[in-house]
């Protein structure tokens, strides 16, 4: 597997915390939501960066209680067509103001690269043979009709103003 970096973020190195195991002092760990929701503050203080591993089945509202304690989120797609993953990333950015890394894992396809970026993903874990196609797909379109979480302004706004993004607007309002 290789990591495709969509946004130029500094990707998090982490280990998947085994069931029942405790994080080492300062270690970056990825943990299931179920467990995170059950853990106390000691757990969060011990680890370095804590990430949630969620599937597209996870209702976004479950993340509300922990989003501000997370350093990163890993969203697992069971199939590339499971578009709930895109809404989860949007919810994290939009509803919880989440600024950390959002990573996609699972069988997403190269032709989704720009959709992932625009929905708020930073990184994608892909098989080696898909790397080239993923990277090619990233530079395919010069613009889109929607403002997005990759920082791009919609064509509709670009036609009439300069440099107006969703991100900028939210902070201003």
């Amino acid at each position, binding site marked *: 597997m290789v990591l495709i970096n969509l946004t130029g973020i500094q990707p998090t190195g982490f280990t998947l915390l085994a069931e029942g195991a405790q994080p080492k002092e300062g270690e970056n760990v990825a943990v299931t939501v179920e467990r995170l929701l059950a853990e106390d503050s000691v757990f969060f203080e011990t680890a370095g960066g804590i990430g949630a591993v969620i599937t597209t089945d996870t*209702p*976004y509202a479950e993340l509300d209680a922990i989003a501000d304690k997370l350093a990163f989120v890993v969203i697992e797609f069971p199939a*590339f*067509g*499971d*578009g*709930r993953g*895109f*809404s989860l990333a*949007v919810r994290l950015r*939009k*509803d919880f103001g989440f600024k950390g890394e959002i990573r996609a894992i699972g069988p997403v*396809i190269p*032709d*989704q690269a*720009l*959709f992932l970026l*625009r*929905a708020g993903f930073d990184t994608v874990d892909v098989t080696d043979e898909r790397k080239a*196609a993923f990277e*090619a*797909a990233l530079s*395919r*379109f*010069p*613009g*889109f*009709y*929607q*403002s*997005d*979480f990759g920082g791009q302004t*919609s*064509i*509709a*706004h*670009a*036609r*009439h*103003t300069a440099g*107006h993004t*969703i991100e900028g*607007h*939210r902070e201003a*309002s």
Partner: protein
Amino acid sequence: MYAYDTYDHAMVNARVAEFRDQVDRRMTGELTEEEFRPLRLMNGLYLQLHAYMLRVAIPYGTLSANQMRKLAHVARKYDKGYGHFTTRQNIQYNWPKLSETPDILQELADVEMHAIQTSGNCIRNVTTDQFAGAVADEVADPRPYAELIRQWSSFHPEFSFLPRKFKIAITGAAEDRAAVKWHDIGLVLKQNEVGEVGFEVLAGGGMGRTPVIAKSMRDFLPISDMLSYLEAMLRVYNEQGRRDNKYKARIKILIDAMGIDEYRRQVDAEWEKIRHVPIDVPDEEVARIKAFFAPPPLPVLADAATEVDELANANFIFKAWLANNTGAHKVPGHVHVTISLKPHGGIPGDATDEQMDLVAELADAYSQSEIRVSHEQNLILPHVAKSDLPALWTKLDQAGLGTPNAGLLTDIIACPGLDYCALANTRSIPIAQTITERFDDIKRLMDIGPLKIKISGGINSCGHHHAGHIGILGVDRRGEENYQLLLGGSGAEDASKAAILGPGFNEVGIVDAVEKVVAVYLGEREGDESFLSAYRRLGPDVFKEAVYGTD
């Protein structure tokens, strides 16, 4: 008409380049058919019974003469000289070669057309009233809003992998010619008490194996909130629509399960959060798009034209065509003209390259170079001066395009069925052909009056049989093609679901049954009562008796 700017051109050209790369990867074997399938399905390319089928969008059914010429050219150069206009304001080519599809798309892109989102689990081509901008009974021209939705929904980062396909229809007139209540979302332009224009929003309509008529979400949505509200509706559906069973994945099933009130509550809660984020486009953008749809500069003309009366008195077919295929335009002295693609004995919705070229030429000569496609699979010249009608009709008639049956029994909607479709139970085209041959008498058809027959060769109901005054559904009965008869549906503002009358028939029996149903109507109608009104008053029993006998 909307005209692309550099942004729109760059978008479709990038899409063509991407698709060309995908096809190349498939041709060299880098992609397997299994890997290629989702990619082609994002671009309207289906694998059918005999060949690939390419579905090209005609956004909200509006075409220029030049675009129509390009459609003719594609039919001639890349297909077998014809195309099929569908109920969703698309055109389908039945015989393209895979290796040539990128070239077809490039040719289409050159005239500002595309196949983006004509298939796949995304927001499909937005459809509307074929007479938009031409009739007096509309609150506003719906097409600027359809274009806004087209842009907003194209390559949407979040809504391109929905649980299932998603269809939005919009109408600006009280008389619903766009079947909005049969769509996942229906938008009806209206004015509120203080004269502002907005939408009534309907949700959860759909056909397929579970026909549902859309329910009202909101009585009045200001226009400036259109996109944020749609976004909230789509988000809740994307998150909660079922993905475990594709037959239960449409929004109608979600709304049925959670109830319209709960769905509305969740949408409103989400909408409150996003209303003020600039999803909605700036006012200048709405104004820019609206300007493209400014009414054409038609002169006010005299309402009577002697050359029309003279030909009408001399030629009954022309007279019938005037009565059935033309309708009042908002500018005096003009009409909109429906060009029937339903010649008796022909294939509903098919047009040859020569016919398409002719329609383009006539649009240039008589209709401000503008053409429309209706969900009833006909072509429309929206802005014709009455005095031009004799010349126009003569040319149409010579090309087999003068059938005077718009809105009558033989103006049948039929899906491709087993002649093309890999999912079909039965053929549907031959049933339409037999019915039109059986009723091949324009006087009789006019006596029967408005009657919509809609035929699907399978449960997916691409031929809208649930909304037919008379619906016909092809089913497979132990390996035999069998046809069910349904009565009483409507796709209009008084939408209703057609009900199955009784056991099915073979391909001859179904045509006999239609004839018996029509005979009951003619015997029972009161005054100038339409078929649908008579059925609603009488109920199914008299029809059942006539069709199945009393014993």
